[in-house]
């Protein structure tokens, strides 16, 4: 479902309040779009298959939906970032426990955590996880900010930004490819970059 309220970044208070209402599909869509890649990527790096990682995304989002009220009122649960990391880690552990012996043999190897024994719950404060979570969190912020800006700027400007900044095509090559002049390339790049930086700052403040 597409968004109608992409013109602003929700504040921590407003998004949390709206997530309380499970029927508020727009807010859940904003939340899902912002965090699914992060959860999915961590699940894959923990050695899960793509299908298992998708289940982890789904289960983690369900947990957020279920416990968001508890999180809002219990400050001992810490920051949202830490809380989401723990939920993700626990759901990954659930997936690992569900595995049958044959699956374990063919499973991809984990970059973090290491193999768990049956019934063992992984430590959310695991150093490897902490480091990768931090890296993924930053990469995810950048990706989420770019995605949001992409939907708001003029399509032609995003294409210039994509070719020049993301794909590193020289400005004169971008200009000749798209049939625009150099000034337009620099202007579009500047505008999109400024919006992405602003969006990242807003997302950082969000939680």
């Amino acid at each position: 479902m597409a968004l109608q309220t992409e013109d602003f970044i929700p504040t921590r208070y407003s998004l949390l309040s709206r997530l309380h209402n499970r029927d508020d599909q727009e807010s859940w869509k904003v939340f899902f779009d912002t965090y699914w890649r992060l959860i999915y990527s961590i699940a894959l790096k923990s050695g899960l298959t793509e299908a298992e990682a998708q289940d982890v995304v789904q289960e983690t989002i369900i947990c957020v939906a279920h416990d968001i009220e508890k999180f809002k009122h219990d400050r001992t649960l810490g920051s949202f970032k830490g809380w989401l990391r723990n939920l993700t880690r626990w759901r990954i552990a659930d997936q690992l426990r569900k595995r049958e012996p044959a699956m374990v043999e063919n499973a991809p190897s984990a970059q973090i955590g290491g193999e768990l024994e049956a019934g063992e719950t992984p430590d959310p404060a695991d150093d490897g996880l902490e480091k990768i979570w931090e890296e993924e969190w930053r990469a995810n912020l950048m990706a989420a900010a770019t995605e949001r800006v992409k939907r708001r700027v003029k399509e032609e400007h995003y294409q210039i930004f994509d070719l020049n900044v993301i794909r590193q095509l020289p400005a004169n090559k971008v200009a000749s490819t798209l049939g625009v002049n150099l000034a337009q390339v620099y202007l579009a790049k500047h505008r999109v970059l400024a919006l992405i930086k602003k969006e990242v700052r807003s997302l950082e403040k969000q939680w």
Partner: protein
Amino acid sequence: MTEEVTIPVVSDHELLHLIGRGSSGEVWLTRNTLGTFRAAKVIQKKKISSGMPFEREFSGVQKIEPVSRLHDGLVDILQVGRNDAAGYFYYVMEIGDDISTGQTINPEEYTPRTLGWDLAHRRRLPIGGCIRLGAALASALGYLHRQGLIHRDIKPSNIIFVNGFPKLADIGLVTDLSESGTRIGTDGFIPPEGAGSAQADIYSLGKVLYEISTGNDRNDYPALPSPLVDSAESRDLIRFNKIVLNACRSDPARRYQSAEELMTALLAFQFSKYSPRKQKARNHLSKIIGIGGVIIGFGYVIALLWRLIWVLNHTP
């Protein structure tokens, strides 16, 4: 665990085997009493969570059935039946081409050719093919809209080929423009304002054109494919892309205002050839205008300064 398949009764048709299953129903390959192959979509009430979509789909069939055979770009609906006691209804359609044998159907090996299948196997289509396909579908969509109907779920897997000609299929979500409020459709093909309007259908078709011309996923929009080498095909793609952008603008007011307008743009593209010489001349002219503007501006500033100095020198 395999799902139990209950075989419904479709009047005068022998149901051969399942060829598709979606959220709202199953599609069967059938053979009628004349031996002609057809496709029959069966919608069972018990497989739909609430009664509303069942009735909505039936209502859609009622609306589209009289007009489906009046335009080449819509899949013909040939027969409709309903069995309330058993809780299902069905509609029989012309059969889509097989992926390798076209309209020569071998029931044992039949796989319907959809645009989704083409994309999965060819990744992207040549721009000429995109124009032909886009113009045919825009024409069908324009016809649907003129009848006061909207499709609401245009995407590659809902576009089939009959004798190689593209047609809008899966008409289950077709509805009146007047009752189009429900949020429905497929993620990525729905515009920011939501599905359920003629404008939204144009956006969805624009996203289809984006996928078939770039080979990118709809969610990558508006990114261009890579690599973009300096070739006639790439130049055509950049020009074609302008049509895609005008069909998929976030603001519906900046989109093509009708499917006919989109079709006209596609046909105009076909008849206007890219000329590197003309483009070079245009670039040259804009450079001259730019330089001229700078000179005039500079001269204006000098004149002002000169006038200021003159006034200061002649002021007692």
